[in-house]
């Protein structure tokens, strides 16, 4: 028999639970409390400490059904979070396409339509150049508007979600950086190839995309680095925030009173007045940093 069956059981529960951090922590906390309470009762009834722990574990039941019951919800939450991340990345990608359309418009006005529309499959050189140059603007701007709508949808969705993040921090940003980096490289190579084959005509078509993809790559790299690299400050520094709303700290007006988290990851400490309850994190902190705040504790009532 193991020296501490309860510890062994909790280790197994921790190893096998595939839930978000909060669910896992809470489940282990409650299981530990329950098992030790049962063991203490059995021990006081005459069992040896080890037998009491083994019996407590037996009564608690096998790990598998508990893990399964927890996983069902977490898997759904994971699916939703993945969809939300996909919405964000798709929105960013389409907005970048839209901006490249505006850049193509500037190129059309500045360098002439042949710079963007220099190569086409349509018959008749002038018409085809104009067609390609105009399409490069109009179709891309439409895509950008669709991207804006997707981003608005993403923001609205995120605003109404208070569950803790399941995807690893920095994963979505790293994916965004990789996608934009690949786009930058591909479009830059195409631009260079076009320039080598035809000179300036047609170069603007891929170049406008590359010029937008490059800063987008840098932006996503910075976001990923912020999430993945350790902060210089303590990761668990508490920031005291006074929430003055009397009845609830869920009120969005509190956000203006939270000059809090400068860099992730920090925990935020909320000091609320009598009757206040800690609300969903996203309503409390600025959305940009919301993912990085592990928890908000209610210090005083």
């Amino acid at each position: 028999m193991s020296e501490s069956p309860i510890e062994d059981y909790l280790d197994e529960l921790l190893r096998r639970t595939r839930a978000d951090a909060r669910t896992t922590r809470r489940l282990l906390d409650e299981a530990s409390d329950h098992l030790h309470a049962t063991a203490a009762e059995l021990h006081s009834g005459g069992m040896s400490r080890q037998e009491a722990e083994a019996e407590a574990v037996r009564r608690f039941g096998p790990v598998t059904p508990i893990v399964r019951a927890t996983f069902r919800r977490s898997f759904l939450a994971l699916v939703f979070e993945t969809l939300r991340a996909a919405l964000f990345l798709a929105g960013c990608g389409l907005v970048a396409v839209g901006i490249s359309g505006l850049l193509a418009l500037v190129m059309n006005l500045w360098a002439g339509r042949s710079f963007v529309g220099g190569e086409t499959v349509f018959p008749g050189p002038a018409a085809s150049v104009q067609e390609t140059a105009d399409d490069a603007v109009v179709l891309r701007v439409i895509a950008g508007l669709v991207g804006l709508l997707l981003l608005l949808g993403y923001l609205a969705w995120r605003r109404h979600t208070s569950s803790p993040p399941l995807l690893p921090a920095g994963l979505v940003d790293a994916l965004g950086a990789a996608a934009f980096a690949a786009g930058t490289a591909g479009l830059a190579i195409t631009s260079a190839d076009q320039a080598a084959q035809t000179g300036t005509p047609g170069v603007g078509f891929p170049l406008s995309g590359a010029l937008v993809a490059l800063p987008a790559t840098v932006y996503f790299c910075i976001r990923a680095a912020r999430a993945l690299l350790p902060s210089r400050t303590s990761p668990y520094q508490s920031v005291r925030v006074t929430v003055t709303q009397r009845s609830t700290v869920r009120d969005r007006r509190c956000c203006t009173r939270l000059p809090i988290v400068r860099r992730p990851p920090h925990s935020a400490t909320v000091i609320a007045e009598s009757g206040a309850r800690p609300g969903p994190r996203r309503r409390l902190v600025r959305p940009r940093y919301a993912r990085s705040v592990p928890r908000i504790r209610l210090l005083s009532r």
Partner: protein
Amino acid sequence: MLGGSLKNNVDLMLMGVLRHGPAHGYAIIAALRERSDGEFDLAEGTIYPALHRLERAGLIESSLESAQGRRRRTYALTARGRKEFTSQRRAWHSYVANMQAVIA
């Protein structure tokens, strides 16, 4: 839902225990065992995912309380949970009455 296995009626039983007042997981299990005369001897660990599910559904709420130097999560029925319990209990009674009428 009705008439299924014990597992399928855990939610109703948990709400039934909490209807008498807030309780933590250990006390809920003890109450279940005591009120069923030891008949409903669930694997104790299975009630926690069920409690979490009920809380997410807004039928119960939880709070951390300190007792004897330990912090324990205590669960209580919400107003919505009370309503849901009443409705499910009525359905259960009706099911039992119908079943008795059939097999009597």
